[in-house]
């Protein structure tokens, strides 16, 4: 490595790298191209080392933004995203990002500065027990106690973050260890006797699954994030076509099969399409391919596919029997399991079933009023027509997220990025920036609400500085829309803390950061302005001033069963939902 040689003193008096330099060198060996972060006292040795590194530092305006950028980078590329922050508040600002990554199985590495070893536990300035605070939100974590362990820890951290079910890994580095000389040799070995990575599935349950699929007359393939992570796009499509079975996906499974494929019924669950939900409710067999039977898709468990055969493919054994008791569970990587399953598949007798699904598709299409002002659905529908699945779409959390999931049809994996498990507002825009760094040749669109955007909008500066072509579409309803919808539907329209009066002019706000700001007021402007932003080589904020009080349908109230799905706004008042949140 050129750098190490540069630091050799010509007088044979060899200068050793510091721990911080060693750590950065280890990251270089892992192939890291970007680090997202923000410095502080305890992290200075590592930030200093970055000046001599091939790794590009992306200075964010907030540590939360750094974690979501790393996450968006990771989800869009499949490579781990790396975050570097300082101790105490810098580190605690990454907690939300780690929860977000954990819930959605995204590989990120968060490196924090820490107070010097001798002051640990003594309430030193900016000390926080970050390892302690983050136990519940990491896949694994390390507090570096000895500089000689740096190469091993970094290697292990990358291995753990990226293999099996991916997730966030934290490395907490005391400042003295970052500063002191460290010549610990690099290592490629990983010795983790307690860590197994499943790959191929066992023969017997796969054969059993093949038999059950053959005998099924009304099968449904339920595709989750595991299929996206394992790159099972092709395998899922082949299986669906060979079996002639309809496919539904979760919010995070979008893209594991082209949503414009005739066998694809779109997303199911709380705000899924009515036809996907009807198929799930009526199937005689449901096979989860890397989905974890989340409460947002099952609704009331006792009623969920009560009489259907359940098959579950997952790389995480702890997912089996957690929510449902599958008839067959197959431990393994989704793609590898499907590749072993496919040769055993015979075309099932599903002609009637597919016909039924098509009927539902015609009977209950996704729809929205074409009159009465600008609608988010219209804007997103047109963005789908413009991008045709070629752009990477990220979203924030709320109504716009659900409409985006309904109207933007993902054509391939890693093109749809959304905070599903954690539902983290503020995720959308920074994750798009991260995805743009990882995919310089692709167009990236963030779709955000006016509420969530304001949680991480300072990253406009990051987008501006790096002249990223990333676009941010703000669906501005001047409300915390999803909250207002629930209050309208379940709380007698008693709107509490959901009105965002006092919103800034987002166009001017963008311009204040040097970012182009465009506004859509009328349906007639949609295509022109979306195209203008799409073709612009720099960052653009597009503000769609949509009708204030619109609701997302279909909707299955939390904790209700699919049979209780509301296709449109009900006349009377509704009981308060019983399900989780």
């Amino acid at each position, binding site marked *: 490595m050129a750098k190490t040689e540069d630091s050799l003193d010509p007088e044979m008096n060899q200068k050793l790298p510091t721990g911080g330099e060693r750590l950065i060198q280890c990251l270089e060996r892992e192939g890291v191209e970007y680090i997202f972060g923000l410095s502080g006292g305890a992290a200075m040795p590592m930030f200093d080392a970055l000046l001599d590194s091939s790794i590009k530092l992306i200075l964010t305006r907030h540590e939360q933004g750094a974690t979501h950028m790393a996450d968006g980078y990771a989800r869009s590329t499949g490579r781990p995203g790396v975050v570097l922050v300082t101790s105490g508040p810098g580190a605690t600002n990454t907690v939300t990002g780690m929860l977000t990554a954990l819930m959605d199985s995204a590989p990120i590495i968060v490196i924090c500065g820490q107070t010097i070893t001798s002051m640990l536990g003594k309430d030193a300035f900016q000390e926080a027990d970050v390892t302690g605070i983050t*136990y*519940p939100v990491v896949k694994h974590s390390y*507090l570096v106690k000895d500089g000689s362990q740096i190469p091993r820890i970094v290697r292990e951290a990358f291995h753990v973050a990226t293999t099996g079910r991916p997730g966030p890994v934290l490395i907490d580095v005391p400042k003295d260890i970052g500063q002191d000389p460290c010549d610990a040799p690099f290592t490629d070995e990983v010795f*983790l*006797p*307690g860590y197994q990575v499943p790959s191929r599935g066992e023969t017997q349950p796969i054969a059993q699954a093949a038999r059950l699929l053959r005998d099924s007359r009304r099968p449904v393939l339920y595709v989750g994030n595991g299929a996206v992570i394992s790159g099972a796009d092709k395998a899922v499509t082949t299986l669906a076509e060979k079996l002639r079975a309809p496919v539904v996906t979760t919010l995070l499974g979008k893209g594991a099969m082209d949503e414009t494929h005739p066998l694809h019924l779109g997303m199911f669950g709380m705000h899924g399409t009515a036809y996907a939900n009807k198929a799930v409710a009526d199937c005689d067999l449901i096979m989860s391919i890397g989905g974890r039977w989340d409460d947002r898709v099952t609704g009331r468990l006792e009623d969920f596919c009560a009489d259907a055969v359940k098959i579950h493919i997952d790389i995480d*054994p*702890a997912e*089996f029997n957690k929510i449902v008791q599958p008839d067959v569970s197959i431990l393994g990587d989704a793609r590898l399991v499907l590749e072993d399953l496919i040769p055993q598949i015979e075309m099932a007798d599903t002609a009637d079933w597919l016909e039924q699904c098509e009927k539902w598709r015609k009977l209950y299409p996704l729809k929205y009023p074409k009159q009465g002002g600008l609608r988010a659905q219209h804007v997103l529908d047109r963005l789908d027509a413009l991008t045709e699945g070629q752009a990477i779409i990220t979203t924030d959390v709320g109504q716009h997220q659900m409409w985006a999931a309904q109207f933007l049809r993902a054509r391939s994996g890693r093109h749809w990025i959304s905070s599903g498990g954690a539902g983290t507002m503020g995720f959308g825009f920074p994750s798009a920036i991260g995805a743009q760094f990882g995919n310089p040749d692709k167009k990236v669109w963030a779709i955000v609400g006016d509420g969530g955007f304001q949680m991480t909008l300072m990253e406009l500066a990051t987008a501006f500085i790096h002249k990223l072509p990333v676009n941010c579409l703000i669906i501005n309803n001047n409300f915390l829309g999803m909250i207002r919808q629930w209050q309208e539907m379940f709380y007698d329209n008693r709107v509490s803390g959901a009105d965002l009066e006092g919103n800034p002019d987002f166009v001017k706000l963008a311009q204040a950061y040097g970012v182009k700001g465009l506004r859509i007021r009328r349906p007639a402007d949609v295509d022109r302005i979306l195209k203008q932003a799409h073709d612009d080589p720099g960052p653009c904020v597009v503000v769609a001033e949509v009708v204030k009080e619109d609701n997302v349908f279909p909707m299955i109230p939390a904790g209700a069963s699919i049979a209780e799905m509301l296709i449109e706004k009900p006349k009377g008042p509704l009981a308060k939902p019983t399900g989780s949140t």
Partner: protein
Amino acid sequence: MSAAIELALPVQPIHTISLFVNNVPGVLVRVSLVFSRRGFNIESLVVSPGAEGDFSRMTVTCSGEHEVLEQIIKQLSKLVDVVHAIDHSTDNSYEVEIALAKLECSLSERAQILQIAKHFKARAVDYGPESVILQANGSSEKIDAMIMLLRPYGITELVRSGKLLMARGKKTT
């Protein structure tokens, strides 16, 4: 919760789990978080170095619903620092526990106390003018029984090791 009350009120089933873990800082927190997150109460926990220096042994007894236990074992196994986690609730493992009990007693009571101790093969390991410390070892149930009999004499302090366990024959603990 004292053992005696526990016997009287078996609210939730008791499970015994053995863990083989990396001997590193934080492993105990990671393990205990798995239990607390699912609402399991840890009744006893013994940690000791394993035969190889880099690993530790944990024996955990806990109370909670049967259906959740399977999940807990899986969540424990998922921890990077846990090499394996095994539920021994139903197998016939060799189990033992040590207890120390301090009783404040008059001379007249002492003979009766020592009589009970003898029956349970417990030893008096410290005599004071008005107190005695008994050391008992054996199955947790045996110790529970002894303590129940001693209670009327006034146990002022009770320290139990928690259950230790080893699978029989060639089975892994």
